[in-house]
């Protein structure tokens, strides 16, 4: 299985562990991730304004590059996934945006949302299969009680993200079971961590992080996993007395014996 891969800015800097463990685990699973050449920052937030195309161009360039290689595009950071998936949806379904973007970019071939965008977790679930992962685990994380923190970006809006049931997701819990650990279900697993609010309003960001951590602890979690560098930062740095929190790729690499 060979895919185009979009790591994004944070995975090259503060979120290196998310990327490096993801690559090691993929290799072990027989998945080839070909990093796109000359990819550009996705912009970190999806531009909701219908009259803006400039903020969507970097995503379209990545999508068109994957299309040229005839490969699905794998993302790993929740924010990159959210932005690129939604821009792709715009290019597929909003004629006006697609026309303006294509007029501006003048690609060799117009881009109209042809590329499949898959988050790394979706690749694990839908392409590799959790049952196969289970068979490849050499170091099952037995007895570890792990709370999956979904946050917002992977799940909502579900009609565009089509990632999982946005109110009652199971993909990360299934992942936790596949690596031999015990998932802990808690109320705040799909509530906001505070997001970019940490830049201008630390107090509000802390309030949000504390609610998530308290909810996970209440249900007996001993550690947490996430797919987002900003979620990890907010819970760890803005939350009081956070549980140990890891990128899901780190635990995958550990279970596969390649950490």
């Amino acid at each position: 299985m060979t895919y185009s891969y979009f790591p994004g800015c944070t995975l090259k800097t503060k979120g290196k562990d998310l990327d490096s463990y993801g690559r090691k685990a993929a290799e072990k699973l027989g998945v080839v991730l070909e990093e796109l050449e000359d990819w550009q920052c996705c912009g970190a937030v999806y531009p909701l304004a219908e009259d803006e195309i400039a903020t969507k161009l970097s995503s379209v360039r990545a999508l068109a590059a994957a299309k040229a290689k005839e490969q699905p595009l794998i993302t790993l950071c929740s924010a990159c996934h959210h932005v690129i998936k939604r821009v792709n949806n715009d290019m597929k379904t909003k004629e006006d945006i697609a026309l303006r973007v294509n007029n501006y970019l003048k690609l060799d071939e117009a881009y109209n949302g042809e590329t499949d965008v898959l988050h790394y977790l979706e690749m694990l679930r839908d392409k590799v299969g959790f049952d196969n992962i289970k068979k490849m685990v050499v170091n099952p994380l037995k007895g570890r009680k792990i709370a999956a923190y979904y946050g917002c970006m992977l799940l909502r809006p579900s009609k565009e993200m089509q990632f999982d049931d946005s109110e009652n997701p199971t993909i990360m819990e299934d992942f936790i079971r596949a690596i031999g650990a015990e998932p802990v279900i808690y109320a705040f697993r799909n509530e906001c961590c505070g997001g970019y609010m940490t830049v201008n309003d630390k107090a509000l960001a802390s309030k949000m992080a504390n609610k998530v951590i308290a909810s996970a602890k209440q249900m007996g979690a001993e550690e947490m996993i996430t797919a987002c560098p900003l979620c990890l930062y907010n819970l760890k740095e803005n939350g009081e007395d956070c549980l140990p929190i890891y990128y899901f790729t780190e635990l995958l690499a550990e279970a596969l014996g390649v950490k």
Partner: protein
Amino acid sequence: MSENIIRISGINPRQCMKCGKCSATCPAFDEMDVHPHQFASMVVEGRVDELLASETLWKCLSCFACVERCPRSVEPAKLIEAVRDCVIRQKGGSYLSPDDIPEKLDSELPQQALMAAFRKYRK
């Protein structure tokens, strides 16, 4: 001005049936002066000046809880973003300056936080 907000957001605020789910689900509700469910009716009524001056523009987290749970596709986060765009697209309308950044930095802050804040607070 209401027309501008409708055009930028792509939302028809007249579809709102005032069920209040958006405000009920908003994690930043307590921080806001104008609440998500009020945005739709205030755009319809042309009370745009109040929206342009609202603290809510800088408290919305874009978590999309209101978007997900709106049964009428009014999706207040999109209206809030359109109003915020109307503010930050004006000269002098930025809410965040690069000069503010050095004192906000710490060694762990991920790049995506700064990128996101600049995209939300500045043009």
